[in-house]
């Protein structure tokens, strides 16, 4: 009996000690960076190319270049998108993360709220050449308004309407639609004989959010009010979500099967000539890898109610893109800033964005003729004139999950023939909103 009691005491003591050390693990991160190991950096890159290996091949020579310039060796890990946010959360919790990392720009405000990322105040921006070098809309999507950004824009993207020229010609349509009414009218001509007008990724929560956000802007709503409170059930937001799902439910220009797409199957359908249009960000390299020739497809601005994209109710895209951030507890803070400076230098910006088919958020780098190609010009104009950042609120990540799931469930209704009504949309959005407020 005594033996058991002793064992129990030892067990409990060990457990408590371990709990305390476990708790203590995170505390070191508050101190800010140091320069204890000035010769190395760890960098988590996001997957921008066709696959992880391709990214490694593209980035490694650049990192060698950086090592030659500064003597700092960069250890690269390319993290797939499916793991990236979880990995960042784990790194934030444990304090054991990389020095520099890429983040999806929509996560900026959420990650900013954790306090784990280095704030880019004027002094830090000065170290990389100043805030003025960057396009405004890109900096606006790097953190909550009124606070120093939590990251620096690295690659910028926007949505465009990609269309299959041959299918348009076959249906007797002479150009891409500029308004939603035109898109639906064209769509009805295109959707026949097992072919469909528009593709969608119904099971991809982020993509659902991107689409209904732009439509929400056109209906004059933003999903969050000025104070950062969710307003999912306003008339404008309900109308936006309904309009998007109605392309399948009412207009029947999206194939029902798209409701379960989540692995870019809609791009495959497009490349195979099964669908005539997709709304996507920088899809050129994917089309090429699926065997499409550049002359097979065209790119146009995403339709807006008036036909002329602009600010306010004529916004036709979110500001999409990748930001580069520094973990505050890095042991090489100077080196990390040097690396961010290197990655956002004009030369690297031109080279990397050209390779990845994105737009440089650095204004000076945009002058490169490579970014004047017709499809990239559409993206560039959209970013400059008619793109708005997703709500920069700490709950952005929850918003994507809650509303993204609501839209996913509505796709499932539409696909199975369950009527999608204003009430049913409102009910789903109401549920999503209640989940946000607990």
């Amino acid at each position, binding site marked *: 009996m005594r*033996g058991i009691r002793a*064992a129990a005491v030892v*067990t409990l003591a*060990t*457990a*408590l000690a*371990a*709990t305390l050390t*476990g*708790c*203590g693990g*995170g*505390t070191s*991160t*508050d101190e800010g960076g140091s320069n204890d190991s000035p010769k190395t950096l760890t960098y988590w890159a996001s997957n921008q190319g066709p696959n992880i290996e391709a990214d490694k091949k593209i980035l490694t020579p650049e990192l060698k270049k950086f090592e030659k310039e500064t003597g700092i060796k960069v250890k690269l890990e390319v993290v797939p998108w499916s793991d990236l946010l*979880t990995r960042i*959360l784990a790194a*934030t*919790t444990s*304090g054991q993360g990389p020095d520099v990392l890429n983040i999806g720009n929509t996560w900026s405000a*959420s*990650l900013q*709220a*954790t*306090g*784990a990322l280095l704030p880019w105040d004027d002094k830090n921006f000065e170290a990389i050449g100043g805030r003025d070098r960057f396009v405004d809309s890109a900096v606006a999507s790097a953190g909550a308004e009124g606070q120093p950004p939590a990251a620096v824009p690295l690659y910028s993207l926007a949505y465009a309407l990609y269309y299959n020229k041959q299918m348009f010609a076959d249906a007797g349509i002479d150009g891409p639609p500029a308004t939603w009414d035109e898109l639906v009218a064209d769509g009805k001509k295109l959707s026949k004989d097992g072919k469909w007008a528009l593709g969608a990724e*119904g*099971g991809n*929560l982020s993509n659902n959010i991107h689409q209904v956000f732009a439509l929400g802007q056109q209906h004059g709503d933003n999903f969050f009010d000025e104070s950062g409170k969710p307003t999912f059930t306003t008339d404008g937001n309900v109308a936006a979500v309904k309009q998007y799902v109605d392309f399948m439910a009412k207009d029947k220009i999206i*194939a*029902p*099967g798209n*409701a*379960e797409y*989540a692995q870019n199957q809609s791009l495959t359908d497009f490349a195979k000539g099964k669908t005539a249009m997709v709304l996507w960000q920088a899809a050129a390299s994917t089309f090429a890898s699926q065997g499409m020739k550049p002359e097979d497809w065209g790119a146009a601005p995403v339709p807006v109610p008036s036909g002329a994209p602009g600010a306010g109710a004529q916004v036709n895209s979110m500001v999409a893109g990748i930001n580069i951030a520094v973990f505050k507890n890095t042991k090489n803070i100077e080196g990390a800033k040097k690396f961010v400076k290197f990655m956002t230098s004009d030369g690297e910006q031109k080279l990397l964005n050209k390779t990845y088919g994105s737009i440089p958020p650095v204004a000076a780098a945009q002058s490169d003729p490579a970014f004047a190609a017709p499809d990239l010009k559409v993206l560039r104009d959209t970013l400059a004139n008619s793109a708005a950042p997703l709500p920069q609120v*700490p709950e952005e*990540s*929850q918003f994507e*999950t*809650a509303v*993204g*799931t609501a839209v*996913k*469930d509505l*796709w*499932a209704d539409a*696909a*199975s023939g369950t009527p999608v009504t204003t009430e049913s949309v409102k009910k789903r959005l109401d*549920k999503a909103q*209640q*989940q946000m407020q*607990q």
Partner: protein
Amino acid sequence: MTSTVTPPVRKSGSGADQGDGGARRRRLPRIPDRIRQGGLPYLLLLPAVLLELLVHIVPMVIGIVMSFRELTQLYINNWGNAPWRAFDNYKIAVDFDAPLGEALLHSFYVTCLFTVITVGLSWLFGMAAAVMLQENFRGRGLLRAVFLTPYALPVYAAVITWAFMFQRDNGMINHVLHDQLGLTDEPSFWLIGDNSFIALVVVAVWKSWPFAFLMLMAGLQNIPRELYEAASIDGAGIWQQIRKITLPSLRPVNQVLVLVLFLWTFNDFNTPYVLFGESAPEAADLISIHIYQSSFVTWNFGTGSAMSVLLLLFLLLVTAVYLVATSRGRKGSGAE
């Protein structure tokens, strides 16, 4: 270690005895003996206990601590500073009128139904296959190997294959059911909507019945053949033999098997996660994936932990009741 520790104890014990009465002299030396004899098993268990602590108990304790704190994104960077919230997280989880509690309760019901069906079918298939493969015939070894394949395959690879097969437009299931057999008017969705529950059960049963088969097959080997021979001489048919000999003899195996299957199935995370991604359809919203979503996707680790602790308590309770009930039953039948 025992030999170096015990002699001084014995010495001092005997030294103290010199001045005392003889009655204590006999009792005292027996304690070190007991420690010496009883210590070795504990010593041998020590590495296992330490690892168990490290791998299981410590994370569990940390999880329980987390469930009493407001561990949202604002505090994960420095979670020693997360405010204590006493039972607030639990109140949110069990407030079944509010959306979060309601969703958790729904998820709990779905999981219970899923577990009962999956364990039932797995056991039934395992039992049927084990009984059929009892007789020696050509190809028995091959069949056994084939039956065990799902158990040997890595979960991720297996389930992702199922996910492809369940796709509406290009999946094999619809190709067979709709295109070839014409059983449905329209190709059905299996990964979204209500059918997702069926898809989930199919994959889970496929994945876990070989384990039931393996355990029951091993159990069947231990039943003496003479019992069956005697029974058939007495005129018992196959069903009577199964009911009167096979099932009672398998009772101890079944007791453990059903419990293990229950715990595995109830906690199954891999199958729904690989099949549906991070947001499962309502009809297939198993509790493990629900908790994952409540913590990782919405960054609220406090509420997620509280839900996990509730799940742990529920499973402990079920396990305890089950073990008490089945053991009592066994004693009763043993006395007959």
